Structures are given as structure tokens and as C-alpha cells.
């Protein structure tokens, strides 16, 4: 803090009350994020949180920072534009599984290989909530939804193994039933230099009667307690494919940091134009237009 004062947790909260259903996993995400920002003492006005569309994408309204409540699937490109314009900002993208792994999947892949210093939080409830309960890209096989009354016949996306394959430099999974770990994973992700994915198992208490808090509690385990080494890519991939996978095994779901690399430069570091400082602080217009015209003579 510039004035040496500690920013209180309350200062990260907005005056707007969340509109999520009672018991929604997203409350834990909001609290975890506010705690992470407070732990790191990041000034609220230097944070921009960008979301897409869906229940979880309302999250910017509940924080006191800058926010951009974007259109469906486009939180990552909007966040990328903001980060490139002003790398001094802490930029967080957030949204649901439909938003990030469905309609926005293309951006998700490319953001990871690009390694911009953005933290991406996906509130994964394995269902479309705001549109009242259709199958999502992470809905499990055989799950019955409004759009799949006979049960889902596609295999779900595995966001963790996808992120590992795409070159993400911080890959973690949290669970809304474990608030303590969640806050830590966000703080680590924000501190991580590069693209950080935190996939959060965030149960939908209204439309997903299958993947409930209890269902997860019977299956989750701490990667850290089992001695997982986040620098070991192949170990991370093995743990990632414990669930979901083609064999439909569903008995072990790891929580924590799957993988982290700190030696990969970020996109901003490699972009020569940004070495002179943030774009937003550069002077506008041309100092010497004549030299520019030489090539046209």
C-alpha cells in the first residue's frame, strides 16, 4: 500500500448482493477471490475482472474493483486486450464451463500458449445454469439434462489435461467445498507470472443433481498431501486424467496445483513494444512523420 495502510477484506466487496441461488458454489469462489486479493494487498482500482455470460459471469458486480461484464465466451480476448494495453493492471478472467470450455474454447486454448499474465477462474458446475439446465462441455456421460433427456452421449472435456497440453504455465483445480484451499490457489495463480488456470468444481444446486457437494467430497483428495510434485509434467498429466476420462472412472479427483512453470517468459515480456512501458502511458501521434514517408517515394 502506498499509504502504508492494510486494505481490509471489506474493501474488496461491492454494494451489490450476489444473485446466485442459496448454496451455489460460486459464493465460495467470490469469497476466495476477495481473500486472495486481500492476502496479496492488491489495490482494488488496479484490478480488472473480466467475465463472459452465465450465472458465474455476474461475479465482477460483486467486487469493488474495475470490471468488464463481456459477452458470452469472450472474457479472455477482452481481458487480453486490457492486459496488453496496461500490463500494470492485475487482470482476472472469470466465467463458467459453458463460457470458457464451450463457446469460448478457441480463445482458452490460444490464451494458454500465449502465456499472458492473466488468471482465469472457471466456475465449473458441469451444466448450463442461466439457460435453465442444458448439458455443458463438462457434463458427464449419461447425465440427463433438458437437452439430453436420454443422457449425454459425448465425453466431457478434461480442462486440466487440455490446459497441460496447451502449454498453460499454472494449472490448478479447486473445490467450492474447500474454501481455504480455493483462496490459496487463487493467490498463487494471481502471483504466478503467466497464464494461470484455476478450474473450480462449483456445484450447481439447482440443475445438477449428480455432481453435488457430497458427490465431490467422497472423491476429492489433496494433491499436495499425496506428495504431488507440480514441476513434474507427466505426473500432472497422470493425475489430471484420473477424472474425467474415457473409462468413466470417477473415484479420485485431485485438488490443488497440478503444474507450475516459472521459467517461461510471459507474452508481455516478449513483446518489444511493451518494454518502453504500458501502451496506455505512451504519447500519441507521430514525432517525425517525414521519416515514415521515405519508403513511399
Amino acid at each position: 500500500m502506498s499509504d502504508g495502510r492494510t486494505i481490509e477484506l471489506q474493501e474488496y466487496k461491492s454494494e451489490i448482493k450476489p444473485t446466485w441461488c442459496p448454496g451455489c458454489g460460486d459464493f465460495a469462489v467470490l469469497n476466495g477471490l476477495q481473500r486472495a486479493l486481500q492476502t496479496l494487498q492488491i489495490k482494488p482500482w488496479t484490478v480488472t475482472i473480466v467475465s463472459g455470460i452465465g450465472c458465474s459471469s455476474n461475479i465482477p458486480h460483486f467486487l469493488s474493483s474495475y470490471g468488464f461484464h463481456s459477452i458470452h465466451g469472450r472474457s479472455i480476448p477482452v481481458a487480453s486486450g486490457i492486459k496488453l494495453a496496461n500490463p500494470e493492471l492485475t487482470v482476472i478472467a472469470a466465467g463458467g464451463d459453458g463460457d470458457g470450455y464451450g463457446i469460448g474454447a478457441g480463445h482458452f486454448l490460444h490464451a494458454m500458449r500465449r502465456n499472458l499474465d492473466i488468471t482465469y477462474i472457471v466456475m465449473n458446475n458441469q451444466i448450463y445454469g442461466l439457460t435453465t439446465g442444458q448439458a455443458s462441455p463438462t457434463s458427464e456421460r449419461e447425465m440427463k439434462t433438458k437437452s439430453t433427456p436420454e443422457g449425454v452421449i459425448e465425453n466431457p472435456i478434461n480442462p486440466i489435461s487440455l490446459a497441460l497440453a496447451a502449454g498453460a504455465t499454472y494449472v490448478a483445480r479447486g473445490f467450492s467445498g474447500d474454501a481455504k484451499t480455493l483462496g490459496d490457489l487463487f493467490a498463487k495463480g494471481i502471483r504466478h507470472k503467466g497464464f494461470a488456470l484455476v478450474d473450480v468444481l462449483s456445484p450447481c444446486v439447482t440443475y445438477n443433481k449428480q455432481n453435488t457437494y457430497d458427490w465431490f467430497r467422497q472423491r476429492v483428495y489433496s494433491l499436495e498431501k499425496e506428495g504431488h510434485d507440480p514441476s513434474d509434467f507427466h505426473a500432472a498429466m497422470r493425475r489430471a486424467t484420473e477424472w474425467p476420462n474415457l473409462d468413466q472412472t470417477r473415484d479420485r479427483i485431485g485438488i490443488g496445483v497440478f503444474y507450475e512453470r516459472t521459467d517461461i517468459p510471459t507474452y508481455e515480456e516478449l513483446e518489444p513494444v511493451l518494454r518502453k512501458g504500458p501502451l496506455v502511458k505512451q504519447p500519441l501521434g507521430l514525432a517525425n512523420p517525414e521519416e515514415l514517408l521515405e519508403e513511399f517515394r
Partner: protein
Amino acid sequence: MTQKELVFRIGGAAGDGSASTAESFAKVCTRSGLYAFTYTSYQSVIRGGHSWVQVRASEEPVLSQGESPQVVIALNQPTVDIHGPQVRERGAVIYDSETVKLDGIRLAEGVRSIGFPLARVAREYGNNALMKNTVALGAAVRLFDMDMRHVESAFRTIWGDKKEEVVQANVKAAMAGHKYVEEHGGSLGLGLRYSDHARLLLTGNQAICLGALAAGCKFLAQYPMTPASSIMHWMADHAPQYGVVVKQVEDELAAINMAIGAGFAGVRAMTATSGGGFSLMVEGLGQGGMVEAPVVAVLVSRTGPSTGLPTKTEQGDLNLALGAGQGDWPRAILAPRNTDECFRLAAEAFNLAEVYQTPVILMSDLYLSEGYRTVDGFDFNVPIIRGLLAQDGGEAEGRYLRYKITESGVSPRALPGQKGFEHIAGSDEHDEKGELISDVLAGIPEYVEVRKRMMEKRMRKLDGLRRDTKGPELWGPQDADLTLISWGSTQGPLREAVLNLQETEGLSVNSLEFSYLFPFHAEETRAVLARAKRTLAVEGNFTGQFSRLLTAETGIRPDRFLGKYDGEPFAPSEIEAKIREVLA
């Protein structure tokens, strides 16, 4: 045009280097004090096919690509077959006598066939296969009586001082061609007057880039698509020096949304694409209107629908630009009529986007964007007007209202990082604070009223946009017998047709030309058209997209319509024929 002109055409397969040789030739023309104009006819292939470039140059500004050439350089047999018969009387065909045969080609009277072993001659000066084009270029330079000094200096601007040996080898190769013509009949004797007054030669896309730099553009996000790609190429080339982040992205959805993110964060940002990519951008553009983020989207049209003719021109995307995005949101659509306006309107677009905090669409087309034109110069004294900004330094007095309702519809803008002005930019309908009213508040009487007021606030920006942009230009005699109506790049061929008919047949025609398409200037338009005796709309599309806009805005229907949708630009002769028909 009765003034003296030269028309040069070079053709070959894709990969034969026709385009770069033509560009060199246009540069030599410009350095010889002429105005040059190029039109490239190419295909969506990397090797093979048949592509050709026409360069037309004159002592006066050139308005169109012109028609039949005086000199054709044939790099392969199809060029002779297709273009040989079009060469004007007493013109010339230059070709490689070892690979191209002129047998059976019907040439006009007095056309000289200048066949010699171009490739073999070229090998004496270097191993580059394209050197044979340079030999032919030297031959053409002699036919047109131009000075070899300008060839050398043109090569130097192309290859730079670093590659002096390349420059020298090419100069020698050109000299060989020059010498061959010297020994076989000399010049065509066109009698053009040359000077050392070199102006600037550039494409419409390059002029847009210059305008963007002059206006302080710092961010370009783009996905490759002909004919907009050269904007990204030029900007990428100059990005480090001029402090622009150029980002090639995964698709046009990313391009528009990244540019909007950058605009929201306070940087002058743009994206560029053609119709296909623009179709993907429409939701993002509407978002820009809703969150009130400045952004400039350049739409360089090619022939549609769908993939269409990727390397051909059309003015068929106006409806797309007018209707982009669900619901109503305020936008400005600007369509430069020529290369000068590409520069001026690009710069202006950034001011309008920031002053009105909304997307501005700059519409061009392949004809304007890829053709090289000689221009006198640009006025780089571009004012940079950033519009209403929330005060920096201090905290906001009371609660900051990002979307405060104002008379102009514009609310003071704060940028992320400013303490005390934290807010949400919302794509959902929102109140003055930026808080959404789309879920639990929608339909509650108080918020029905908020929605209405927010909508009206945003749409009021159209009044300011209309005030800050210009109405159409009436060019030509005030009381003409016929008034042409056009927009964008049709200006050149249309003016040439009018001038030709006035000079040769004494017809009195004027032209109402639009560069600012939306918000539409209905009052000025109605005033001009009320005086018009007869009207003919000329557009490069099938349905008369602009004519329909004009009718919707003014209640006036153009009497006649000339549409073109064959992929080629208007030739002045086509417009002349239609004018004669209407006035007959």
C-alpha cells in the same frame, strides 16, 4: 481523359513477380513526376493461374485504372493470348522469345513485338529468376522515354542501402532491356512531360495505417483475410518503431474483443478484416456500443456472398455494417472515396470513436485498399481529441457514474487504474453506475424507465456524430441534367466518366458523393436532390444497398440504378454508357 497518359500492363502466372515489377514501374512513374494508379487482377492461388497488373500514369491525377494498354510485358504465353490483342495501335508487346510465341495473335496496327531472350539476358546479371522482369522493365522504361536515374533510385528505396549489390545487378539488368529497345526502334514517342517532382506512392491500406499512426493508434488485433491483411503486414513491420502492439489472433471474435478490451483500458485500438471476418465481429461490435468502448473496425470489402471472390472487389457489405449487432446502438460508418481520404478518415475515426465512446466502422474495398496511387502528401497535423475523461488524480466526488445520463449521451470515461472511479462495463443493460438491470430488476416499473433512458442516452450520440461529420459533396456543375449518386471508392471512375462526357459530348452531369454514410445526413441530401433533374445511383453491388439507405432516410428514390457485381471495378466507359442511356 484527353491529357497524355501511359498505360502499362504486366502479366504472368502467380509467383512470376508481376506485382512487384508493376510496383517498381509505378514508383519509376512517380519519381518521374507523374501520378500513377495501379490495378491488380490476381487469383486466390500462390503459384500458377494468371495474374496481371495495370499501371496508368499521367501528368494529372489519375482517376481510374484506365482501359487498353500501350505496352504489355508478357511473362508467359497466356498473357500474350489474353492481353496481346488489347494493346493499342502503335504500342508494344515485350516478351521472352524463348518461351512465348506471338504466332496467330491479332495485334492492332503498328504494334511492335519486342521479343528477345529475357531470361537468358537476365542470367548474366544474377541468379534470381525474377531478374528477367527487370530486363523487361528496362525495356518499358525506354519505350516510355523515362530516365534510368529514376529506375536506380526506385530500386534503392525498394532494396535499401544495405543491398547495394542487388540494386546494382538490377540496374544493369534494366539497362540491358533499355539498350535492346534503344537498338530496336527506340521510344513510342508518347510525348509525356516528366519532372523530378516525386510525390508519394502508396496503397489505400497503407494510407489507413498512416492515418491510424498519426491519430495515435497503439493496438491492432487482426486475423488474416484478403484484402485487409496488408494492414496487419504494414503495421507489424512498423510496430516496434512506432510503439504499436500488433497481435495476430485466433479469429475475428478475438480480434474485435481484444481491440475493445484495449480501447476500454484507454488505448486507441483497431481491428481490420473483410466481410467474412466482419460477420464474426458483429456481436463484439454491438458490445462496444453497449459498454461504450471506443474502437475502430476497418472493413475492407471483397466480392461476396460467403467466400465469394476473395481477390475481387465489391461494395456489398454496407448492409452488414449498417445492421451489425442485435438491437440498436450508435455507430459511425465512414467510407473513404480515395487514398487521401483513407488517411484522413482513418485518423478521424479514432477521434470519433473516443469522443463518442462507440465503435466506428471504416469501410473500404479491394479496389481502393490494394491499388497503388500517387498522392501529393498528407497533412500530419492531425488533432487528437480524446473526449470526456473522468478527472485523474483525485477521487470521484460522490459515487462515480460511468454511464451518467447527459444531454450529448456521452459520459466522462474513467480508465482502469484510476482510484475512486472503479466501475463495471456491462454488456447487459445497466444503470448509470454500470450495474446490470437485466436480471432481478428487469420489468420492475422503475427499471423499465431506466432501460428506456439508457437506450435514449446512447442513441443521442448519433446527433453528435452527425454534427461532427460532413454531408455529401456535390461535385460538378450545379444545374446538371443528371446527378450521379455514389459512395466510397466509386468516385474515381465516376468522375472520369463525367469529365469524358462533358469534354467529348458536352453532357452536363454532376455527382453527389458520400464519404460519411452513417449517421446519414438526410437534410443536406434532400436539399441537393430536390434540385436534381434526374438521378442515377452507381454502386458496386447488386441490390443498391446505399440507394436503399438513402431512400429510407430521405424518402427519395434514385431514378435509375447502375450496379456492378462481377468482381471488377467500374470502368469509366461502363458508367459513360449508362449515362448516355439515361440522358438519351
